[in-house]
Each structure stands twice: as structure tokens, then as C-alpha cells.
């Protein structure tokens, strides 16, 4: 049956094509594929599937260069989530995804639906979610708008994850003016499954029914260009809310029902209807299976009357899934869903004919040949050129920057750094998250990496999200390398062997040469680090166009690392545990100061070359740490990162909120270094270890040719932290350190609370998109 336009559909004009974000070049390809002019419905389908979000057209050639394989990788990129084997017949599924743009418009719902989407990506692999992590970026917390975004995002993440009952176990929050107009909200989910229960979103089996499950489809999230053809009266705007609202209660039911469905054997594939909803889920499942599908939009349960095929196909209503069931098992599927008070409707089937076809009752409104709808999208490798201004920032001689008078007292500088919202304790954030539900969180937020035990085994997973956007801004290649290395180091500090990553590439507009340069270089650095550390990329997400008239965000390639802890006894906290333990510094201090939080916080500068990462050394450090931990020699291990060695020592001392410990530290071995670089520089490959067996730790490091030196001892809390360095001795009192660290964010937020009422409920009218 031929494709027939619907009565009333707008005429296809160059303007309408452009409003759908399709370039003339892409439109030519579309004409060639179809051999005719597309219908309005087809134009909508193509605009969704060939969007940056679905097609990765500006990043795919770069992403192909990343390593994706290892013996333990069961599922690499291209599925809902990556999967690695962890032994005992178990596997871990994980993925990170951004919800940056929705969160900028409506932080509470934007963040909440971000969590919902990533949960669905994981449980549609057959995995039960066991942990959530978040990587967040905001502007300066002094700004009321930023505080509104920050508190709304935190509440949105908490309310959704708490309700579904998945613990939020770790995260990072960075505040920097570079993210002022464009907050980043990246959520990662980790799930556990039996290897044999792994299911892939591949449509198969001619005659198998395609079933829509979960919430009804409304007009949410059908974006700007898509309805440009109609008059944009206020009435029409009101009918299509741009903000999608999450329903964690339905999500919890979907989660339980989906896992039951997968285990029942009645279905062959299942996928979230996420971005571009029904269109992308059905087309991608068909493409993976290299089969044809037909969908009848009149069968899709709609929330509103009179919805067109265009709207039903492109809606981004939340908490919906697409299932391919085994023919004849429809009633079994319906029974399971009914148990969970969920509805299901057969909306199509897998067909032998190699086409992607959409009907509205008897009328064919869209038809594409084979899987070319997915595979014919062009890819781009635009011009790349480093910004001269950024190069100049990197080449600044930061050693020549004069110290402020206050810096004569290093405790002043240390306190200033600890109270930087980026460094300070995020307890204000994570006490709003249920970090403990499922009673498997061995190390929760605040550790170097979170550790979640795998029930029924003696193993655990160590999890970390990480990225330093300032480093990536100054040098995207080194910065991305560093993000992988630091995530791996954090995982190893907690006792885990780094295994694989998921990545979330947050960048500006790739059509600008300086942005594409950042993307290209970051991917190059990431690939190199992943190869060196044997942590392949199993999937991820790309979020481009994070910019506003004032400029782009810092390039922020967030790394979500999963490591395996072989025995629960190896789990290692970051903070000191026993007075009398020796403190060993693994790694070497250097004169590096570039890109540091010190320069940002004390001098207001993002400048200098970020610290260099020696990947071979990092690998040896990880081996040394894990050997020492397995030998039972390590009481605590904490990586030196933002704020350098002095901040790391302070965090070791006051990191356990219920029990502080002091320390006596002698750094005179490095008297040749500038004091501020020694204390606050961010040289890589350094870990502060406390141990009852310092000789064993030093010997283990020596076997791997890694520097290690005893630098002091853990003391009672009344002792404070006296440090001997650069020919002098200064003492930081624990109460002052804890107050700077723990009080910084609450003070900023409480001061604001009276002015902005209850964030998440009172919403400013002047939201900037």
C-alpha cells in the first residue's frame, strides 16, 4: 500500500525541513533513500532519529576510536547499557546519561526524569538496579538562580531515586562560573544480573507482537521545531508541556514488572521509550535485529484525544517501555503487567518485509526501506582548531603569580580551599538521598569511590564518577586522560580493580572549531587512558550544544568507572581509622600548580597546564595499592585531587563525621619545592595511605618501582594536624577544618533559604532556557 499523507498535514517546504533541524544535504539523502518526497510524519521521524541525540552524528567517528573490548565485557556500546562479567555467573550493567537541557528549564523534574531514564536503561538489560551516582555542575553558588537550580536538582534526584528504592551512593558536584547558564546533570545507574538473564533490545521473530507498556502517551516533550508548522497560539503551547513530569511510583512498578517479564521467558526484547520515544525505540530495535516492523498508532494508548501519528511517535512521555513478545504469549505478558497494575497494548508486529512502516489504522503514514532510517544518517568531522585564548591561558607562567599576603599562613589557604563548595563536604546533598536502601552500601557518598556489596558473594563493586572540567578546558587531551586515571585511582583506593567505564561527553556546539577540537582531543586522551588502564568503554552518552550567548561550558567528559572488589575484606575507607598508624604517601610531589583549585579559589584564575598524568605510573600505583590492600596492610587510602596534599590530609582527618583523628605530618623531604605547590598543587598519582605496617606498604610499592615514603602518623583528635614543611611548622585545628569542610554549603544554602522559599516548590517565573 502506498504511503499517503494525512489530510491536514502541512506541505513539505524547505522552511519546514529546516525547522526540523534537517540540513539540505541530509534532506537530499532522505530523498534518495525514499525515492520520493517524505510525508510530514516521516519528516518528524527523521528529524528525531537523525538528531544529534539519537544519531551521534558529530561524535560517532571519534567514539569509534575508543577501546570497547576486554574478556570481561559482555556488552559494549550500542545497547541500552554496557555489561561486564564479575564472576560467579554474575554480571553488572551500567550506563551514564545526561539530562542537562531539561534540568536547566525545570531542575526538579529535569533531574528526576533523568534518573528515571537511566534506571530504565539498566533494568531493560535484565539487571536489577543496585546503585545510582550523579555528576553535577553548576555556576557560582553565590547566585540565587544557581542555588535554585542546585536545590531543585538535588531534590529531584532524591525524590525519584528514594521512591523507587535505589540507593544514590556517590556523586560529584562542581561549582564554576563556566556552568552558569548550562548546568550539567549526569546520572549513572549500576545494576546486577545473572549472565544468563542478559537480554538485548533486538527485535526478532516474524509475527511477534510489539507491545507498549506503562504510562499513556501524552504530548510531552515534542520539541520546538516539531510543531513549528502549526500556529503557535498560547493554546497550542499549553497543550504541549515542554517539561516532562516523572512518576517514580509507576517506574517502580515498571521495574518490577519488567524484571518479571524478562525472567518469564515470554518476551524477546524490551527497550525504554526514551528520547524520541516510540520512534527511536522501535526503529533501533528493528535495526539491531535487521527485521521489519509495523506500528499502528491508533493502537497506542493516548493520554489525550486527537493525537496525531506525528505526536504519538515523537512524544517523550515518561515511564513507558516497548516490548517484543513471543507470538501467542500476549496473554501471559498482560497477566504479569496486570499484577503490577500496568496496562499493555499490542501496537504492532515484527514483519518479514524489510521496512519500517507506520500506519494510522488502514492508512500508511510512513515507510522507510530496511534499516536505512537508522544507518543512513550522515556523520560529520568538522574543522578542529584550538582557541588561541585558551592556549594563552594554558601557557601562563603560574609559578610567577604573586602570593596574597594572607597566604603567609598556610592554614588560611587550606581553610579557604576546604570551604570552596567544589571541595567542601557534600553532606547537605547526600543526606537528601537514600544512600542505604537495599542494605548493601558498604561505602556511601564521601568516600573515594562508593562500594556496594554483591549479595550472595564475597565481592563488591567500587563505583566512581569523575571529571575535572577546568583541566579539560586548559588541555582537553590531558584533562580527559586525567579523568580516567583519577576515577581508576579512586576505585583502587576503595579496594577495587578498575574494570570498565561509561562516559558522558558534555560539550558545546561541535560546529565551532574550538569546541570540536576539545571533543576530538578529549576522546583521544580518554581512549589512551582506557587502553593503558585496561578499562574499555561500554557505552555512554553525548550531550552537545551546552552553551549560551556567553559561551560554552568547560568541556566535561565525565567518566563513570566500575571496579571489582574481589573480597569484602579489601574494602578500604578514605579516612584515618586508628591513632598510631603510620601515614605513607604513595607517589611524588611536584612543583605543578596549573589548573588547580588553589589558583581558582585564591587567585580567581583558570590558568596553567593541568598536572600531567603518567599512565604507566598510574597502572603501577593501582597494582601497588591493590597488592598492599590484599595483603591486609592498608587501613585507609585517599587520593590527592582538588586542593592537593593538604586538603587530602585534612579530609583523612575529619572525613569520618562521627570520629575525627589528628595527624603529625613531616614534608621536609620536599623542602626544595615551592610550599604552595607542595601543599596545594594537584600532582597526579598520589595517594595518602594510613597503615599499621608502613614497611610492608613501602616494600610493596618498591617492588612496582613506585615512590612511597612515610610522612607522619595518625594521632588523637585533640592533636590537630601539625605539618612541617618548607622550613616551618603550622598546625590546623580539626574543629576549624571540619567547620570549613562541613559548613560551607549549608551556610550558603541556609542564608539563601529565607529569600527563595522552598526550592522545588516555589519556582521563579524568569526561567532561562
Amino acid at each position, binding site marked *: 500500500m502506498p504511503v499517503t499523507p494525512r489530510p491536514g498535514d502541512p506541505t513539505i517546504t524547505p522552511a519546514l525541513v529546516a525547522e526540523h533541524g534537517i540540513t539540505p544535504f541530509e534532506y537530499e539523502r532522505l530523498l534518495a533513500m525514499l525515492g520520493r518526497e517524505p510525508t510530514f510524519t516521516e519528516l518528524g521521524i527523521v528529524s528525531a532519529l537523525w538528531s544529534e541525540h539519537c544519531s551521534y552524528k558529530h561524535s560517532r567517528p571519534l567514539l569509534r576510536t575508543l577501546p570497547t573490548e576486554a574478556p570481561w565485557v559482555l556488552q559494549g556500546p550500542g545497547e541500552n547499557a554496557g555489561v561486564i562479567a564479575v564472576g560467579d555467573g554474575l554480571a553488572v550493567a551500567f550506563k551514564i546519561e545526561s539530562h542537562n537541557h531539561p534540568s536547566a528549564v525545570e531542575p526538579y523534574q529535569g533531574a528526576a526524569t533523568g534518573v528515571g531514564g537511566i534506571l530504565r536503561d539498566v533494568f531493560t538489560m535484565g539487571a536489577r538496579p543496585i546503585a545510582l551516582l550523579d555528576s553535577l555542575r553548576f555556576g557560582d553558588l553565590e547566585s540565587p538562580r544557581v542555588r535554585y537550580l542546585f536545590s531543585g536538582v538535588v531534590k529531584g534526584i532524591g525524590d525519584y531515586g528514594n521512591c523507587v528504592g535505589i540507593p544514590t551512593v556517590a556523586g560529584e558536584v562542581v561549582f564554576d562560573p563556566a556552568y552558569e547558564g548550562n548546568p550539567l546533570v549526569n546520572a549513572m545507574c549500576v545494576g546486577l544480573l545473572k549472565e544468563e538473564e542478559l537480554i538485548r533490545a533486538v527485535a526478532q521473530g516474524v509475527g511477534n507482537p510489539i507491545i507498549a507498556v506503562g504510562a499513556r502517551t501524552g504530548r510531552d516533550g515534542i520539541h520546538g521545531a516539531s510543531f513549528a508548522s502549526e500556529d503557535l497560539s498560547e493554546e497550542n503551547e499549553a497543550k504541549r508541556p515542554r517539561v516532562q513530569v516523572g512518576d517514580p511510583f509507576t517506574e517502580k512498578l515498571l521495574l518490577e514488572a519488567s524484571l518479571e517479564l524478562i525472567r518469564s521467558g515470554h518476551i524477546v526484547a524490551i527497550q525504554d521509550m526514551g528520547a524520541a520515544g516510540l520512534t527511536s525505540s522501535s526503529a533501533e530495535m528493528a535495526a539491531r535485529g535487521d527485521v521489519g516492523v509495523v506500528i499502528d498508532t491508533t493502537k497506542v494508548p493516548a493520554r489525550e484525544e486527537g493525537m496525531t501519528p506525528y505526536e504519538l511517535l515523537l512524544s517523550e512521555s515518561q515511564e513507558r517501555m516497548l516490548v517484543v513478545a513471543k507470538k501467542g504469549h500476549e496473554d501471559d505478558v498482560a497477566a504479569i503487567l496486570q499484577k503490577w497494575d500496568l496496562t499493555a497494548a499490542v501496537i504492532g508486529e515484527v514483519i518479514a518485509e524489510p521496512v519500517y512502516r507506520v500506519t494510522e489504522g488502514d492508512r500508511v503514514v510512513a515507510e522507510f526501506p530496511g534499516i536505512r532510517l537508522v544507518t543512513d544518517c550522515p556523520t560529520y568531522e568538522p574543522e578542529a582548531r584550538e582557541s588561541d585564548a585558551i592556549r594563552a591561558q594554558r601557557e601562563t607562567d603560574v609559578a610567577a603569580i604573586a602570593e596574597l599576603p594572607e597566604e603567609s599562613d598556610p592554614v588560611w589557604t587550606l581553610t579557604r580551599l576546604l570551604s570552596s563548595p567544589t571541595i567542601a563536604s557534600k553532606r547537605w546533598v547526600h543526606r537528601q538521598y537514600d544512600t542505604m536502601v537495599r542494605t548493601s552500601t558498604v561505602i556511601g557518598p564521601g568516600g573515594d569511590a562508593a562500594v556496594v556489596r554483591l549479595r550472595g558473594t564475597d565481592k563488591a563493586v567500587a563505583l566512581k564518577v569523575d571529571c575535572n572540567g577546568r583541566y579539560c578546558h586548559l588541555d582537553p587531551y590531558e584533562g580527559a586522560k586525567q579523568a580516567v586515571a583519577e576515577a581508576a585511582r579512586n576505585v583502587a583506593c576503595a579496594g577495587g580493580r578498575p574494570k570498565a567505564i561509561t562516559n558522558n561527553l558534555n560539550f558545546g556546539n561541535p560546529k565551532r572549531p574550538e569546541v570540536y577540537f576539545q571533543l576530538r582531543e578529549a576522546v583521544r586522551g580518554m581512549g589512551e587512558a582506557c587502553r593503558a588502564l585496561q578499562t574499555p568503554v561500554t557505552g555512554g552518552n553525548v550531550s552537545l550544544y551546552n552553551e549560551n550567548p556567553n559561551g560554552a561550558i568547560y568541556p566535561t567528559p565525565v567518566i563513570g568507572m566500575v571496579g571489582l572488589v574481589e573480597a569484602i575484606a579489601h574494602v578500604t575507607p578514605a579516612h584515618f581509622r586508628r591513632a598510631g598508624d603510620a601515614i605513607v604517601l604513595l607517589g611524588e610531589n611536584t612543583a605543578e600548580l596549573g589548573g588547580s583549585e588553589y589558583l581558582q579559589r585564591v587567585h580567581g584564575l583558570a590558568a596553567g597546564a593541568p598536572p600531567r598524568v603518567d599512565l604507566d605510573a598510574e597502572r603501577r600505583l593501582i597494582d601497588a595499592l591493590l597488592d598492599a590492600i590484599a595483603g591486609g596492610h592498608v587501613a585507609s587510602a585517599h587520593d590527592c585531587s582538588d586542593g592537593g596534599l593538604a586538603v587530602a590530609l585534612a579530609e583523612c582527618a575529619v572525613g569520618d563525621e562521627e570520629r575525627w583523628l589528628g595527624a603529625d605530618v613531616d614534608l621536609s623531604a620536599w623542602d626544595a619545592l615551592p610550599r604552595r605547590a607542595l601543599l596545594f598543587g594537584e600532582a597526579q598519582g598520589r595517594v595518602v595511605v594510613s597503615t599499621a605496617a608502613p614497611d610492608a606498604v613501602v616494600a610493596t610499592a618498591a617492588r612496582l618501582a613506585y615512590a612511597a615514603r612515610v610522612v607522619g602518623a595518625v594521632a588523637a583528635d585533640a592533636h590537630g594536624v601539625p605539618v612541617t614543611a618548607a622550613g616551618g611548622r603550622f598546625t590546623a585545628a580539626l574543629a576549624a577544618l571540619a567547620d570549613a569542610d562541613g559548613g560551607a554549603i549549608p551556610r550558603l544554602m541556609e542564608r539563601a*533559604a*529565607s*529569600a*527563595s*522559599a*522552598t526550592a522545588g*516548590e*516555589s519556582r521563579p517565573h524568569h526561567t532561562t532556557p
Partner: protein
Amino acid sequence: MTASFRIEIRVVPRRGILDPQGKAVADALHSLGFPEVGDVRVGRHVVVETRAADAAEAGRRAAEMCEKLLANPVTEDFEIEQVVPV
């Protein structure tokens, strides 16, 4: 013979019970230049569409709904604001 009614119900925290949400809103209004604001209470507005023989019966049934489910007798008061035929 029944007719359709739209019933609007207001549920508010009982007077004398700490309403932290209301207090936060009052504080915010003060700092936004509304010093005249006294007590603020934040409650729920429930709109029920139902069928009944007449408005009086619809109102009676609505009161039962409130007592049974829509309001908590320990902490909340309710008021049936409107019963409108539709």
C-alpha cells in the same frame, strides 16, 4: 437519575499544628517585601468529578470521601468549597 458534578475540596493542616511549609513561605514573602503577611498555611486542593442525584447528595458523599481518605482526621481540616453541576 443522576447528574455530573465537579466538587472542589480544600484540605489544610489543622490550626495549631506546625506547618513548616507554610512557615517557609511566610518567611520568603516577608523577605520579598510583604511584611504584612501573617500566618501562611499550605494545603491541598482536590477536584473530584462524580455523579449524584443532586448537589446535596454530591456534597454528602464528598464529605464521606474526605473523612475516609482525602483528609487525615488527626492533622487536617477539610472544607467542601464548591459543588458545581457539569
